[in-house]
């Protein structure tokens, strides 16, 4: 307290210090780093992201993990329930092993009766030779992470009505089911960004026309489009080609939503002064879009993309269910569920409905990831 009731701080004060040091050290990083830092705090999103990354990285190597091929049949073991892996046989540690199964048709109930042979435990083999597969579709190999012991089966999640291993099929199915979303989203991205940015950037008549196109597309129920488009696919195309078309169809149906948000974002970003600044310095429209607009709404797009991928995955399932999507011998989760969509499968062979689980898990993971991304989009605000 000095004279006249005044308080004056006595700490040393440097008037120009603020000019030389950055104010928010924590924000001094490229955008992706800031997003990442913030995203890291969203635990659920982080876990989902890691899980999904793992899933996608595994796709080329499913052949290695799967003990069987996708269409490998065991005619002796149809509709086998999931087999459990044991470690101890009569109190004695054997390492992972299974009891071999014999199955027999019951002509009264018309069910398969599966009996484990509890006398002869058989050890699971690791890094063993099995059916041939291709790593990433290219490099042939026969080594599997684990295989069934000789003369026995290893159906972790049971087998289906042709004696195919559901676990292996789910792994192979992931190859198609997980990529359908990515391809679809790519298509939808390309179209959405293109039309959205054209509408947003040029405005006026083009904007009006694009808006009408979007309105038209949105007023058509998806179903007939699916039907018509998939019926229009030349019928002599291979399953994989059909698959691509399906993904593209899904993408084509998805773009209007994206285009709208791109357009809205574009309209608001255009008003940002750094965009104006670039324009006034003589930057071309292309440069403005590339250097200023796109990078700044990419993160929004990525977030909305992650949120659309599950819809695409579910779309594939639904299409395959309706018999419009993928068909055997292609293996996808939708195809597998299509096999399971009758009462017998649910009541008598419930394990044939297991493909529901990966769908649920993947969709959940994508949603949580998208949520996390959305929350961390604006790293500058706290």
């Amino acid at each position: 307290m000095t004279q006249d009731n005044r308080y004056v701080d006595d700490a040393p004060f440097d008037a120009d210090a603020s000019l030389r040091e950055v104010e928010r050290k924590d924000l001094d990083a490229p955008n992706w780093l800031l997003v990442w830092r913030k995203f890291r705090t969203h635990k659920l999103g982080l876990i989902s992201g890691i899980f999904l990354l793992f899933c996608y990285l595994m796709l080329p190597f499913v052949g290695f993990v799967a003990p069987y091929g996708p269409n490998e049949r065991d005619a002796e073991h149809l509709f086998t329930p999931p087999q459990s892996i044991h470690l101890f046989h009569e109190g004695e540690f054997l390492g992972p092993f299974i009891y071999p199964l014999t199955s027999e048709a019951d002509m009264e109930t018309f069910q398969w009766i599966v009996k484990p042979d509890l006398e002869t435990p058989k050890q699971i083999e690791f890094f063993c030779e099995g059916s041939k597969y291709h790593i990433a579709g290219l490099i042939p190999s026969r080594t599997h992470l684990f295989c069934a012991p000789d003369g026995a089966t290893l159906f972790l999640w049971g087998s289906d009505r042709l004696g195919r291993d559901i676990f292996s099929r789910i792994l192979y199915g992931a190859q198609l089911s997980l990529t359908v979303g990515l391809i679809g989203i790519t298509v939808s991205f390309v179209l959405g960004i293109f039309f959205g940015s054209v509408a947003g950037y040029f405005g006026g008549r083009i904007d009006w026309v694009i808006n009408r196109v979007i309105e038209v597309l949105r007023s058509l129920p998806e179903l007939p489009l699916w039907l018509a488009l998939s019926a229009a696919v030349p019928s002599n195309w291979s399953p994989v080609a059909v698959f691509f078309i399906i993904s593209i169809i899904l993408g084509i149906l998805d773009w209007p939503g994206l285009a709208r948000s791109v357009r809205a974002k574009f309209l608001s970003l255009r008003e940002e002064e750094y965009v104006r600044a670039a324009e006034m310095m003589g930057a071309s429209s292309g440069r403005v879009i590339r250097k200023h607009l796109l990078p700044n709404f990419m993160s929004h797009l990525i977030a909305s993309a992650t949120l659309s991928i599950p819809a695409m995955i579910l779309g594939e399932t639904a299409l395959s269910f309706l018999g419009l999507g993928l068909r055997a011998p292609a293996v996808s989760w939708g195809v597998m569920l299509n096999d399971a969509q009758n009462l017998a499968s649910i009541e008598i062979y419930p394990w044939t409905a297991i493909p529901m689980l990966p769908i649920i898990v993947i969709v959940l993971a994508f949603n949580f990831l998208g949520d996390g991304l959305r929350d961390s989009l604006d790293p500058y605000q706290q």
Partner: protein
Amino acid sequence: MEILRYAIYRFGTMLLTLLVVSVLIFWIINLPPGDYLSNQIAEFRASGQESLVAKAEFLRQEYALDKPLWQQYLIWMGFLPGPHGFSGMLQGNFGWSFEFDRPVSEIVGDSLWLTVLVNLAAVLFVYMVALPLGVIAAAKSRTMIDYTAAFIGYLGLATPNFLLALILFYYGNKHLGLPIGGLMAPEYEGMPMSWDKVKSILLHLIVPTFVIGTSGASAMMQRLRANMLDELGKPYVETAVAKGMRPSRMLAKYPLRVAFNPFVADIGNLLPSMVSGSVLVSVVLGLQTIGPVLLQALKSQDMFLSGFVLMFVALLTLIGTMISDVLLVLLDPRIRYEGRDG
């Protein structure tokens, strides 16, 4: 007055859009190779039902299916005279369903109110579930409550509808005695409304409502939550708090009111998504809604039927969008004042 002008303007664009949509629809339903009657004739031949072939041929001429496609379109719309003069959509003649051998209007009439009923129930379910959950999730964002709500919501979204339906039906029947399929016990069909009939309908609605509703509810919940979170960060919310408002009342009066606008904007999209979304479920559950009719018509290329249903849905969508646009202008004074883009 300005509203009226706006409504008229929107109506004009709607008509234009509808015209384009009609061309598209006609093109789409004719996209798959073949047509109903040719397929039918082949089918009759294959199964030895020669006697029915003649009738199919008769219909082909009657409905000008032997004409080029663009003429068929014009006749269908009523721009060109058909074999019996002008009688297209414009003249109020919606065509003939080959599959049901009945005027399209009769068939659609039957399933329409059921569609409305099922979807209404589903929408109610969606709102009843999504509204509180979304608001709570936003108010308690990033807490266990939020995550639990999200988990439940996503679970609903992720479970394939058709499988859920089958499972619920089977076990619902086994353990709770719920009826399998249909929308009411058949004996009530065509009967006047009675308490028993209502009960029967309600009982039959449980599973479909749940199945159709879950995916919609989770989507809506997530959107509501995101919108609410956006609004919660706005200064006017703090103003309300500074006034001394209770949080619950504040939530309902301010952010929810604003966050809700997008849902008004969505009225138009509700219908097509419901029709598409409930088709699978309706097929599995055997509901006599317009969805399975449409699917059946599309698959068998019953062109007038599918064309009409599609046009109808498109019309409803467009009217819905129009209404929601006008409503938005009424509801949101900002738009009324500043104009609305797009």
